């Protein structure tokens, strides 16, 4: 369970503070796949970063005993490091028992070929997503955070990503942000709507989507 207790999060802009969450308390279940919906700029990505522990609330606490992945988005990793260097870096940071095993897995999964030894700045967005996705699949996280990532890649990769994800889903759940209702229907069964600093929980994803579409 990921529990948020009286969480307030804002960030400064030139026009004053922008509030993403105001005094939110909520428990996210472990056994559901959760969709986060909200309009552009509502703060969905920030919420994902908060859940992933790479951003911090102004006040309140976020606690969990689960291994949560970094948010899988379009950009991640250091642009000046090669795919291989990034892979090894993450494997070391995660305390992987075998760097080689992680490297082999990512090479196989991401199918980057020679690009694996070129800096990430030379990658297309699809290639970045493939590396990022493969890297996260190399570890058995309890919760995977996804930020619009499944929309990229060619059909063959999409299929592969879907299969990998399905194999993880027996033990893990996902929390994802997407604007595609079809995508969310396929992956999730639980919805959270982020609107004007408040989170509303919908046990059924369909309710969440219809509410979101009427915003």
């Amino acid at each position, binding site marked *: 369970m990921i529990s948020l207790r009286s969480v307030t999060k804002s960030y400064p802009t030139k026009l004053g503070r922008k509030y993403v969450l105001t005094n939110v308390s909520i428990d996210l279940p472990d056994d559901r796949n959760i969709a986060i919906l909200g309009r552009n700029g509502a703060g969905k990505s920030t919420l994902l*970063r908060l859940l*992933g522990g790479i951003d*911090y609330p102004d006040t309140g606490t976020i606690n969990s005993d689960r291994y949560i992945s970094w948010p899988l988005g379009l950009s991640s990793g250091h642009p000046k*490091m090669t795919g291989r260097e990034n892979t090894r870096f993450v494997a070391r940071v*995660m305390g992987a028992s075998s760097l080689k095993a992680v490297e082999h897995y990512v090479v196989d999964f991401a199918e980057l070929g020679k690009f694996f030894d070129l800096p990430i700045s030379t990658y297309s967005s699809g290639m970045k997503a493939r590396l990022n996705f493969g890297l996260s699949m190399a570890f*058995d996280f309890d919760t995977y955070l996804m930020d619009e990532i499944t929309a990229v890649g060619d059909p063959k990769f999409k299929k592969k990503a879907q299969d990998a994800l399905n194999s993880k889903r027996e033990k893990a759940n996902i929390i994802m942000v997407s604007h595609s209702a079809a995508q969310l229907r396929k992956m999730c069964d639980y919805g959270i709507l982020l609107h004007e600093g408040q989170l509303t929980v919908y046990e059924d994803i369909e309710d969440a989507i219809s509410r979101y579409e009427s915003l």
Partner: protein
Amino acid sequence: MEIKKRSSLAIQRDVIFALFLRELRVRFGTYKLGICWAFIEPVAFITVLTAIRTAGFKSMGAQTDVHGIPFAIFFMLGFMLYSLFQKVSLQASDAINANRQLFAYRQVRVLDAVLARVLLESIIWLSVIVILTLGLMWLGMNIQMVDFLRFLSAVFGLLLVGFGLGVFFCVVKQRVREMEKVLKILMAPMLFISGVFFSLDQVPAKYRGYLDWNPVLHAIELARGAAYGSYSSIGVSMFFLYSCGIALTFLGLATYRLEWRRIVAS
């Protein structure tokens, strides 16, 4: 692959090691001569300065050492300690900007990036000074190390000064970009006022009081005095060096503690 449960300390160790390897690659991977540059710079500096000063003093018929320290070693110690301070503080102050994308992994904390850089600089420095000393020994120089512990204390005190200053600027730079320029301005005269070229007692007495505010000068003079018994490190004190080191480290870590969340927040 299964994720192992690790203690916080084990995680930090793994992270610093990962960052360390990355920094090592970046630092030397981009140059054609790679790690050789760590040696070329001080060797060139020492050679040029020794040549100039030897030539200058020869024409006056004077000695070729400073209180028993041969010129080459005198400059070597001065320049190496100065460059330790300069490299550590500048590298530390840029640790965030160079590693920002890596903070996307929750295990990687901002301070780890700074520590990895300080560790790397210290290790490079240590290997360079050992090899330079062996080289000068091979050339038949009079190498001495009277009080090794005191020498190490001076080096460590200087490291604290550099680290504290580096962390402080690293953090405040994120709020006020101009601080980058302030640090550069602060560093510009350091080579000339830290006693790299002259020992403190070669400076006219009425100026010594001003130079004495500079902790780097203290570290350099203390290190020389610790290495050569004949060298009098008068006018400098270990107490002042450590006071500055501890005060700056406290300042740096305090600002870090206040600001680190804001730094990782997007």
